[in-house]
């Protein structure tokens, strides 16, 4: 029923004429080359234009290392928090019925529809030194905007829905039978969580983490607003790329970019393999659910 074209024998009368096929594939390839493949190749070509020595010099530069450190630290805070939120939200949404559930789902999606610049601006308005709350914090020596905490907050905001969005459908598809069995047999809540729930959704969890991490390390607009661009201090890698580029240090800008591009490619490969693990779980579990509903 669920037909993947390659698994199915060609049906008569449903094949396109070969000139149509060739024209469409060629169009697709040209379009993707212009927008995806040429840019990726260009990143590495530009990064290596001054030779391999300059490439490595750009990466091990103290400012570059500071940017890499801040990027890793930001992701190390934002990802676990949002994944924890994703687990809690998917548990409550997939396992319980309560009024306002649909509204909650819509609210979780909000950060997706907010421009990154506006996302950063929200935190400037709330926590900048001119705002009441930000002013009070500043008087107590706590600086958030134009400092690391602001970068972390803005990153948490833009990556907020990612883990939850992946986990909710998986949690729903896996179903609650095994968890109910565990509880009936006398397991405690945490015991059930670590022995049944977590193993059941582990691939989906990892998938959500990978997506969340890629966005956390790569966020530019929101972080740009709150960072204040203090060199070697509040620069993440994407911001450092901008600074180098505006300084006409193109080879160095592309060298740092090449690291981020490698991260993006690694993310896509991980996504590809994880999707294959996640989808069978969903389909395997979906069939009986459909039967129950019918």
């Amino acid at each position, binding site marked *: 029923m669920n037909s993947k074209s390659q698994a199915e024998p060609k049906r008569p009368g449903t094949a396109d004429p070969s000139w149509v096929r060739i024209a469409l594939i060629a169009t697709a390839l040209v379009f993707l080359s212009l*927008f995806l493949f040429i840019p990726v190749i260009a990143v590495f070509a530009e990064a290596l234009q001054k030779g391999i020595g300059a490439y490595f010099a750009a990466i091990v530069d103290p400012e570059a290392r500071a940017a890499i450190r801040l990027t890793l630290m930001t992701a190390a805070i934002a990802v676990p928090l949002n994944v924890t939120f994703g687990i*809690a939200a998917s548990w*409550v949404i997939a396992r319980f019925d309560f009024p306002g559930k649909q509204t909650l789902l819509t609210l979780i999606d909000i950060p997706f529809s907010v421009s990154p610049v506006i996302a950063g601006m929200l935190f400037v308005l709330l926590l900048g030194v001119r705002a009441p709350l930000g002013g009070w914090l500043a008087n107590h020596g706590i600086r958030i905007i134009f400092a690391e905490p602001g970068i972390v907050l803005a990153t948490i905001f833009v990556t907020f829905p990612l883990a939850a969005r992946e986990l909710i459908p998986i949690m729903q598809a896996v179903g609650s039978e095994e968890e109910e069995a565990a509880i009936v047999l006398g397991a405690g809540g945490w015991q059930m969580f670590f022995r049944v729930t977590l193993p059941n959704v582990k691939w989906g969890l990892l998938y959500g983490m990978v997506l969340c991490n890629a966005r956390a390390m790569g966020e530019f607009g929101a972080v740009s607003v709150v960072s204040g661009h203090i060199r070697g201090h509040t620069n993440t890698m994407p911001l450092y790329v901008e600074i180098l580029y505006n300084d006409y240090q193109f080879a160095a800008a592309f060298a740092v*970019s090449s690291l981020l591009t490698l991260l993006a490619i690694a993310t896509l490969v991980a996504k590809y393999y994880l999707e294959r693990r996640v989808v069978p779980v969903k389909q395997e579990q979906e069939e009986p659910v459909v039967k129950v509903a019918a």
Partner: protein
Amino acid sequence: MAARTKRKNVLPGFGLTLGFTLAYLGMVVLIPISTIFFKTFTLSWPQFWAAVASPRTLAAYELSFGASIAGALINSVFGFIVAWSLVRYEFPGKTLIDVMVDLPFALPTSVAGITLTAIYAGNGWIGRYLAPLGIKVAYAPLGVVVALTFVGLPFVVRTVQPVLEDLDQEYEEAAATLGASRLQTFILVIAPTLIPALLTGFALAFARALGEYGSVVFISGNMPMHTEVVPLLIMSKLEQFDYAGATAIAVVMLVASFAILLCINVLQRWSSRRLAA
């Protein structure tokens, strides 16, 4: 149904997870979002109007909406062709392409921005062939369209692809048996089932493009009245500490985004009903 409700009560953690979810949602999303609306209420009407209706702002809205629509349209046409090729045809490198389609999701926007600028500039890999034809991409409105096409690229492919995969070819076969040409079959049988997914993909790509900052800021050249998009205008107001002006423009953008989000929700419901029927 009663048995189901009873079964659900066995599971623990409702209070804990709901409490955590709401508290975290409130702190990270709702309180920050509400500040912008509170801030707007502190503006006087003339102040608000001066910010959102100044010629520079109107030019930015025009470019942002125009280029986002153009990018989403380009993606609707070519995204459909990519999705169709990936689902219906076999060709070498198919898996690689399927994986790479999501690149704009994974690549930081500043990297995308400087790379697109480098290749579409007058001396770039692609730009050098366009320059003699009098086509200027980088530092012109066309560059904004290129960047916004890039960021919206995955959406149409990823909304149309699953619908095409689930499309039962029996109907096409029936149409062919009844004497329809391939083109007639496509227009009368296939296209109608794809329209909701295509529209959803268009709306998602449009919404993403409207808020985009990172990839546009490098390629556009940022000339007020000419190549300045709305997020960039907000950014420059913030840099001048004109928080009132930035807030007014941002609120208009937020309302537009929420309206699009609503449309997407309606479209997706329509789309899933179509599939179920």
